[in-house]
């Protein structure tokens, strides 16, 4: 594994955008503006959460980072080196030795006809340099132990359908780790799992982060993102609108869309009904069409704070602090605090949890 310098990003998207051309009758030549130029950097030992509603382009960004699609514009950089769309199998393999992806659905992402031994042994052989059988077996066991599937010999001969959802997702993560990547791209890795199992996987991602992995964690769950991610980035209709340390961003969201997201999240400690930005009767609108997206800030048709220039010009980035920025013309307009009750003291919490210090300066946020 190449040396990791926590202050330098491992993987970067620089102004990457993506348009999909539609085919089909009546749509010929139309384009989906799925992602506007987005810049994002993943650092060793850091979990970056990407949140946003359905269709906002989260998976598209992850796929661009995984080289599954070529970007329409912009570039992907690994260790500062531009990746010339790795078209050859060899180029891709070299890339996937560094960058691995975990998908939402552990049911369909694992081949049903192979045992765990094969599912993990194969990438070990391809990427891990485990050529002989004994080495492969040993490394397979290590992987299973790393994702807490222990004792390993109880799992190694199982087929995916013989495992629970959480166990399957661990196998999927173990498979991603087989290449000993430096970057893990998780596209909603826990959304399909039961809460009781989710935490295990998230704690596992946390410990991989502590071991120096750079992790992109895509999720709908902003409460979970606050918990497990070092920073949260908010994507709305293909535009990154806000970024900052999770705690701060949830406590004091500055983009009206982030605020809507936070206010909509289930929160047992909330006492007042969530404020409705559009008054009592109007629902807060629908996500915009990406074939014919609204101009300027794409949130403006739904935005309670919109001013005329919102419809014409995408707002520039405003840095609120070293680690926080927002794209909103009205970012300093009245920010109502959400009323909340004191959180219920939980009885199981003998260990005070301190925020894990982020071991590096944040430098990635300039466009």
């Amino acid at each position, binding site marked *: 594994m190449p040396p990791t310098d926590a202050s330098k990003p491992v993987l970067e998207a620089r102004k990457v955008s993506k348009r999909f051309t539609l085919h089909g009758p009546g749509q010929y030549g139309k384009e989906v503006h799925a992602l506007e130029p987005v810049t994002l950097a993943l650092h060793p030992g850091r979990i970056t959460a990407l949140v946003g509603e359905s269709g906002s382009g989260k998976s598209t960004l992850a796929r661009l980072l995984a080289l599954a699609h070529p970007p329409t514009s912009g570039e992907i950089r690994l260790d500062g080196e531009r990746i010339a769309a790795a078209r050859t199998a060899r180029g891709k393999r070299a890339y996937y030795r560094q960058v691995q992806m975990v998908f939402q659905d552990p049911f369909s992402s694992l081949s049903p006809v192979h045992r765990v031994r094969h599912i993990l042994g194969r990438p070990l052989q391809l990427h891990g340099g485990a050529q002989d059988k004994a080495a492969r077996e040993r490394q397979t066991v290590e992987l299973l132990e790393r994702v807490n599937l222990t004792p390993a010999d109880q799992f190694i001969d199982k087929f995916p359908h013989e495992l629970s959802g959480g166990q399957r997702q661990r196998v999927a993560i173990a498979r991603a780790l087989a290449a000993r990547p430096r970057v893990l791209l998780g596209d909603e890795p826990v959304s399909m799992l039961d809460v*009781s199992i989710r935490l295990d996987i998230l704690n596992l991602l946390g410990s991989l982060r502590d071991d120096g992995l750079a992790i992109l964690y895509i999720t709908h769950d902003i409460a979970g993102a606050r918990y497990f991610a070092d920073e949260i980035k908010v994507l709305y209709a293909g535009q990154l609108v806000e970024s900052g340390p999770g705690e701060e961003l949830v406590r004091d969201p500055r983009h009206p869309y982030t605020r809507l997201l936070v206010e909509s999240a289930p929160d047992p*400690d909330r006492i007042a009904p969530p404020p409705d930005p559009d008054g009592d009767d109007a629902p807060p609108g629908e996500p915009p069409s990406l074939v014919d997206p609204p101009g300027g800030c794409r949130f403006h048709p739904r935005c309670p704070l919109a001013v005329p220039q919102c419809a014409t010009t995408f707002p520039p980035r405003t840095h609120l602090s070293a680690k926080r920025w927002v794209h909103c013309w009205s970012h300093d307009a009245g920010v109502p605090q959400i009323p909340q009750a004191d959180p219920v003291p939980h009885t199981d919490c003998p260990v005070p949890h301190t925020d894990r210090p982020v071991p590096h300066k944040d430098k990635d946020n300039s466009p």
Partner: protein
Amino acid sequence: MSHVPERYEDELLSEEPLSDELLSDELLSGELLSVEGLSVDYFDRAEPVHAVRDVRLGVRRGETLGVVGESGCGKSTLVTALTRLERPPAVITAGSALYRPREGEPVDLLRADERQLSALRWRHLAIVFQSAMNALNPVHRLGAQFVDVLRAQRGLSKKEAQERAGELLGLVGIPADRLRAYPHELSGGMRQRATIALALACEPELVVMDEPTTAVDVVMQRQILKQIGKLQAEFGFSVVFVTHDLSLLIEIADRIAVMYAGRVVEVGPARQLYENPAHPYTAALRNAFPPLRGPRRPLTGIPGSPPGLRHPPAGCAFHPRCASRFAPCDTEEPELLPAGAGEAACHLPTHADAPRTEEAPDATD
């Protein structure tokens, strides 16, 4: 803590003590639906799946009752049996479900015949499923589907039905001009809201919703929940809301029933379940949700996974995953007994051999 349901407390204080019999009569008359001893098995192989086991549950008038539990614990089986939409190989093997309409005689839904049931559908019982596509007919315009139901069930004229359809869609935030749309022309969130409006078209007394918002994202979910709340305030129906999201239920439900391995293991006021859960599973479930605010305490999942229901574990089905288990847990099945203002099926508060602590039970130490 008192063992008397909250809402009767002041009656008890202000008047002469009621006898147990009167109390339970009074309690039952507040219930729109009283389920007793309900069991449902799937006879798909020689050894059936015991998906719902001896469930007792009451739905009070006008309340929102949440039903929560992990995937496969029997939530959908329970509500499909209650609404008599169970399909083979599901078989209701025992129990009763007494439905007490505002007008007319009580009916045991589990013994009602097809004729009685079809008289109850729409005007008494309505159901919303997770997949809105199943409820809306893809080849008919939205408006036509509303009009059909309103004419057949409420005897409205075509014109009246059209007007009412527009109003109903308006209630869930869909402009009346979308009446002419086909279901596939609506967004997923709109379709789901249209399904809810359709379920409410005949002003039923009981609306059962099985994960109505699981497939939509949080902003849309909030929007739908708000509409449901508004409609409930207007029409006064009771809601049974099924989900796996306990943190959501604590916010929106009056009472919550927690299911584990086919049984109701705890039921009680939402706040109580959050602040003072009596069953270790409820506590563990609560502690598994990262809270949106407050200090970040370490979170633990629940070790192991939910049991298969062909051979549920003996004793308390939760015992293999329970950190509080003690001697009787793996052999004696705990009954649903009063706990605070609700009920819980756990040996901990009641069993003679239970370790006595003042601490709340917790499966996650």
